[in-house]
């Protein structure tokens, strides 16, 4: 049989970006430990709506840990206490009966709150637009096997490319730095011959855009790597720094 627990939720409620927010406390009983964290919030919202109140707004979509939509700072950790998962994959079996759970939005200058737990991550879009691509048009490209790529490089590029753009790295960082996000994309493309051609230009453009948008600097605390739900490594940041410095030296 399912095991159930009772929990107390302290949830950040905020009507809009310019409105002052506050914590609200809710009690939820008989939550199955097999339910996911977001299913627990669904249950809360059903109860709120049934009482004529407005539901807690939070971003979510795929609910299988890949779209990067869900966020939430849970008990002081982005995506909660479990390792290597997003909030949608976090399950209530990770919490104790009677526990108080604090739920906040990403808190970072780069990600203003839209409402409640939903934040604006357009800054990531703007960084991608500054150079997170290989500049090729559709059509007129060589055969896929015309370029040989070592398996080691391809696998490493894949590891960098597994970033889901959720923003946990920025939320975890005391400086509000977006270096892990930027370096993952720069690394993926720098490791592959297709992306190598404009690697210098890309590193400079993405770093410039990141700085422009007000993200902080990296001081190597490693919090981003520790909290990344996809285990993107900070060796990517080292690679970005190398790419950036060598690009600047050539200027």
């Amino acid at each position, binding site marked *: 049989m399912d095991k159930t627990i009772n929990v107390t939720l302290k949830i950040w409620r905020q009507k809009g970006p310019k409105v002052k927010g506050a914590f609200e406390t809710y009690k939820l009983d008989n939550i199955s430990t097999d339910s996911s964290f977001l299913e627990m919030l669904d249950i809360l919202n059903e109860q709120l709506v049934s009482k004529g109140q407005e539901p807690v707004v939070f971003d979510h979509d795929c609910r299988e840990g890949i779209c990067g939509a869900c966020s939430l700072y849970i008990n002081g950790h982005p995506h909660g206490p479990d390792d290597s998962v997003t909030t949608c994959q976090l399950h209530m079996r990770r919490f104790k009966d009677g526990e108080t759970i604090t739920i906040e939005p990403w808190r970072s200058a780069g990600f203003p709150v839209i409402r409640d737990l939903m934040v604006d991550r357009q800054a990531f879009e703007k960084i991608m637009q500054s150079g997170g691509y*290989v500049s090729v048009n559709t059509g007129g490209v060589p055969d896929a096997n015309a370029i040989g790529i070592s398996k080691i490089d391809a696998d490493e590029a*894949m590891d960098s490319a597994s970033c889901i753009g959720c923003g946990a790295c920025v939320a975890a960082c005391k400086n509000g730095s977006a270096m892990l996000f930027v370096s993952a994309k720069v690394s993926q493309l720098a490791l592959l011959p297709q992306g190598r051609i404009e690697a210098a230009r890309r590193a400079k453009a993405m770093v410039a855009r990141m700085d422009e948008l007000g993200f902080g600097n990296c001081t190597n605390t490693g919090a981003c790597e520790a909290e990344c739900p996809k285990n993107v490594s900070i060796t990517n940041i080292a690679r970005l720094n190398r790419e950036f410095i060598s690009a600047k030296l050539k200027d």
Partner: protein
Amino acid sequence: MTKIDAKIPQGPLAEKWSYYKSHQKLVNPANKRRLDIIVVGTGLAGASAAASLGELGFNVMNFCISDSPRRAHSIAAQGGINAAKNYQNDGDSVYRLFYDTIKGGDYRAREANVYRLAEVSNDIIDQCVAQGVPFAREYGGLLDNRSFGGAQVSRTFYAKGQTGQQLLLGAYSALSRQIEKKTVKLYTRYEMVDLVVIDGRARGIIARNLVTGKLERFAAHAVVIATGGYGNTFFLSTNAMNCNGSAAWQCYKKGAYFANPCMAQIHPTCIPVHGEFQSKLTLMSESLRNDGRIWVPKKKEDAAAIRAGKMKPTQIKEEDRDYYLERRYPAFGNLVPRDVASRAAKERCDAGFGVGNTGLAVYLDFSDAINRLGENVVRARYGNLFQMYEKIVDDNPYETPMMIYPAIHYTMGGTWVDYELQTSVPGLFAIGEANFSDHGANRLGASALMQGLADGYFVLPYTIQNYLADQIRVPRFSTELPEFASAEKEIQDRIAKLMSIKGKRTVDSIHKELGLIMWDFVGMGRNEEGLKTAIEKLKAVKKEFWSNVFIPGSGSDMNTELEKALRVADFIEIGELMARDALDRQESCGGHFREEYQTEEGEALRQDDKFSYVSCWKYMGEGQDPELIKEPLDYEFIVRQQRNYKA
């Protein structure tokens, strides 16, 4: 009687697409800048189309329901993408990919469309590699392939278990580049809520800004919908929470035919349902069937003991296990197409051999593969999937077999399009899962990514020009035209009505009720009586919804309950059309299984003489029965056979 013209080009099968491309009309670069195109959706099809059209020089407006194109549900596709490269030298060819797709779709797709799909499949792989998609490679540096259901060759390209993610990020990066160049303007957190038709042509949309709650008008020379499928009609599916059929449904109500609505795919390998609070079902990639063996206990008493928690699967001896797919289909074994594997699982569970505490689960066992290849190899191939399973179920699949059960996954039906991907409303195009076209009655694994990208990169950017070439003298439209005002008024009234009901039911509770009716009567096994019952029940659900739903908050502000309500209102009607279509189609084919039509061995039995057509449903107004228009499927090039995966 309305006639339907699919506009299939002349000539031999293999030359139709080349013939079309050499004879179609094009738009010159100076004129492209003057033409506006709206693309709704930013998944594989939408992002690739918006990027490609932007590169060509058109002025593109691209609408995204989420905060970023990267959230689109294409991102969740795990296993891979098919292409006829024949890199493995195992006998693959464009013709074989075409043939497998037609056969896999149980002969209910158009030959010419499918051949074109197979033809451009190779270009997609080239394009993605050029973009920096990190496909899996061999030590020699060349691309690796794996095999998938419904094929006897290895033609599936993959990037770990995250192929959809990597392909979408490729298309998204191409799109981002165009946004920076200002050829594409991206609108995030916008949802299309109506199509605007002027003088019989699609000329714009009304979209709801999901942050402010305001309705906004957008005009263009052509509108493309790339808004995915309607699997969430069932409430529980493998689709993401935001996936919905509303954009397609608005187009239907504005005159676009809806084709083969009953054709929905049930995916055989999903994590079984575990509780009432469940919000979605999680897919375990079909690629697992490469190395996993599917079984249930041979003895009913063993199955009962497992269900009661008195026995573990590992305690069941080899000779007491029924590897039912290998037993029934020796030639394809665990790699039969999805519809066949799903029905076989249902058959065993219905017969009392199911496992798990609900009895609605079968085992997917990797112990043989682990013994043969070692745990490390299995981990390298499927590590992320095993981790995902363990996080959800709290069980280690390296030690205990996984439990799986079928779930709604994909809809082959959708907005009807001709060979040019144009709907029955001139100037309105539909691409990707949103259209009905290429998968017939059942889609093969790793073919959705192929079709989405084929439409977006290599088909639509050509065919839309054939339409736009006539539009170069048409000036930009004003959104002050009365057609925009009346479309906006219509949706405003609808929202006001929903907000004014102030009943007692939450949107989700009605959606769950809808889902259960769909699963019970319009799911894996359908029959005349059940479908008629479903239609009656759905009418009652519709009445309940429009008289007893409760939505808090305001209609002109951010309101997540209202967003869901607008979609559920449409899902109820889509569900009814699905049941109606399933009732009409008195045959079994692919994902559509009518219990009255099966072979003695329980396989799908088609009725080619009567049902070899695409069902195109035309909206006739609220409260009216839709008209059924039939597009005949004439097979000129291949001979239809009973599908056989046994020998």
